[in-house]
């Protein structure tokens, strides 16, 4: 019986499937199911599949399911026909090309369930740390999928002291420091969550203040890049500075790898930690020349298959470089920076030229 994502009951049933036991057979079955659901309902996806000569009635493996380029979210509305008006729209930053991408969700139920459960299963909430977020609240930033996710976490954790520490484009670092001092005094573990650039601002703001020693069991979660919103700092340097500032070990600093176009996230710990996805999402590292998965030890592009991404397209091809490892994958970074362009005008340059006028 096919799932019906237009109905809350159908979505609840899907969540149960995702959060239940997941073996290879079930993964194949659910990915095939979702492919068959999205193919006829997202015209751009159908056209891509036709161009790639892949038909949902006739494909061998879930690895053959075509993935949409991440860039497509900036050009097309990828939203399954027949779903009610979207309850949430999340936008990508659009800092690279000037055009934001949009992710439409008919309801936030699945995103809410998997984003919390994914972090929980990764172990992020072990010890019930006090959650503090260096991003604007979902109310202030309704188009931010990250704010939405942190909002879900906050509600699920039911902590009275948990707060969002960015307001109207400013960080409230002074009251945050006072709050952290209280947690330190009370020996309550803390989880500080934010974008990489927000932590660079934190480092700059507290550069002349004495370092803190967060209570045992505390952790920090950083996500995303810098994208011209702060000075750029390499990952090892950022982690080392944050370790010194907050009294955390490298292993207590987490990276969340996700994107607005997806519903699930991968997590890694420490500077050199590998990323792991939850059971309902998979990342395969592909060779763009062949479209096939590379061998362990080789570099390729990250391709996501996220069964929680029911309302748009669940297979997403990124331009993020990674190394496939036997256990997971090691994220290297965005590919765009590796290409020499010289005097030839490219999309990024055109966007820059537009914004500079």
């Amino acid at each position, binding site marked *: 019986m096919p799932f019906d994502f237009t109905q809350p009951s159908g979505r609840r049933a899907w969540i149960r499937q995702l959060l239940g036991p997941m073996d290879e057979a079930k993964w194949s079955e659910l990915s095939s199911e979702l492919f068959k659901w999205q193919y006829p309902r997202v015209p*751009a*996806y159908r*056209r*891509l599949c*036709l*161009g*790639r000569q892949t038909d949902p009635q006739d494909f061998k493996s879930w690895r053959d399911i*075509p993935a*949409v*380029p991440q*860039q*497509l979210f900036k*050009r*097309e509305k990828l939203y399954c026909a027949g779903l009610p008006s979207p309850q949430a729209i999340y936008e990508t930053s659009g800092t690279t090309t000037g055009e934001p991408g949009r992710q439409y969700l008919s309801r936030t139920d699945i995103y809410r369930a998997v984003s919390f459960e994914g972090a929980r299963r990764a172990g992020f909430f072990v010890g019930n740390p006090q959650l503090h977020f260096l991003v604007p609240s979902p109310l202030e930033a309704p188009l931010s999928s990250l704010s939405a996710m942190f909002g879900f976490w906050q509600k699920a954790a039911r902590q009275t002291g948990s707060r969002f520490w960015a307001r109207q484009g400013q960080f409230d670092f002074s009251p945050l420091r006072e709050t952290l001092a209280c947690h330190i005094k009370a020996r309550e573990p803390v989880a500080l969550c934010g974008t990489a650039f927000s932590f660079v601002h934190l480092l700059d703001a507290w550069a002349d203040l004495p370092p803190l020693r967060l209570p045992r069991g505390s952790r920090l979660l950083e996500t995303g890049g810098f994208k011209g919103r702060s000075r750029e700092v390499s990952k090892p340097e950022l982690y080392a500075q944050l370790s010194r500032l907050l009294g955390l070990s490298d292993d207590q600093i987490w990276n969340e790898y996700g994107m607005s176009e997806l519903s699930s996230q991968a997590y890694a710990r420490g500077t050199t930690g590998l990323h792991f996805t939850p059971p309902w999402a998979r990342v395969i590292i592909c*060779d*763009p*020349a062949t*479209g096939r998965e590379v061998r362990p030890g080789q*570099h*390729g*592009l990250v391709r996501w298959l996220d069964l929680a991404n029911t309302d748009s397209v669940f297979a997403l*091809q990124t*331009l993020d*470089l990674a190394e496939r490892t036997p256990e997971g994958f090691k994220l290297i970074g965005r*590919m765009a920076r*590796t*290409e*020499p*362009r*010289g*005097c*030839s*005008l*490219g*999309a990024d*340059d*055109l966007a*820059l*030229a*537009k914004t500079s006028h």
Partner: protein
Amino acid sequence: MTTRQRLDLLARAYPRLFPRAGLTRLLRDQLGDVDALEGWINRGHVRVWARAPKLIYHIGAGNLAISAMTSLVQGLLLGAHNVVKLPGDREDGTTRKEILDFIKGLPAPLRKLVETQRVLDPKLMCEADVVIAFGSDATMEKIRSQTRWEQKFIGHGHALSLLWLAQPNQLSPRQARACAIDILTYDQLGCLSPQAIYVPAGTDVALLGEKLTHALEKHWSGLHPKPPRPLPTAARIAEARDMAYALGHHVWLPPKRHLGWTLIHDPSPTFRPSALHGVIYLRQVSSTRLHAALAPIEGRISTVGLAGALSAPMEQVFLDLGVTRFCPAGRMQFPPLTWHHDGGHGLAEMVTWIDAEV
């Protein structure tokens, strides 16, 4: 060493890239006389002497070696000491190697006039009489901000080129081949590389697509060595193809879907940059909409390669958009040495003219 001796050495070292006739014409066109650097030249009621710069600082782009080579040759013709800042370590190294090989191939007396640097030396750059730079607009801005106000700065920032097919329904195999040469030379990486083919409304796109694919494949097959397709390049090409499929564009691919070239018919006439590396967009536009279609790149179009005659109104549109060069298809990548790069005057801009009124 005189200008003629330097010219002779250059032409003997690189007769195909820098032929004697071309170098002679360059000096005559831009300085008025081959011997303009050697002494006084009569120009009607005034005698002039072109004094060459002593030191020229060249900053090459990371994508192509040919621009740095041409710039260096001009500096050598002038007899200046030339410092070449090579593309940095962030680039893949191919361009750097090509420039170094070119310098190695120069005759010893000319090679003495050249030194290279891997890292920009702001102090030395400030000492130069002329700074010539190729690269992104951001690079140009940065370099210019480091130069002295009285220094001559010749910057070549971002630019791109286009093909215009006047009568695409009658495109001959020869013209199609010419387009393929323009598209695939230097792997489409330079500012003279076309990023789109524009055709008038009423074009039989299917027929044209077939002609072009045939020509592209034929030309690609004959390329030795073929441009590499490392992971980032392959990713860009694959993304462009998938985007085109998803957007409902017609995509023509080579046999076995190799990554040599990709032809995409985008029904929107509005220009969008290509992924390069053989990815070319075919766009149809009426003459009345051409200006609007190219408005995003106004002032950044270097060359328009032409197959067929360009009507006066169309020419005016391109001129209004700031195009600085028209040439027949097949010659886009091979401008004559006398070419006014970005509308500039190369050699003439570098020298200092001394006037003696009679």
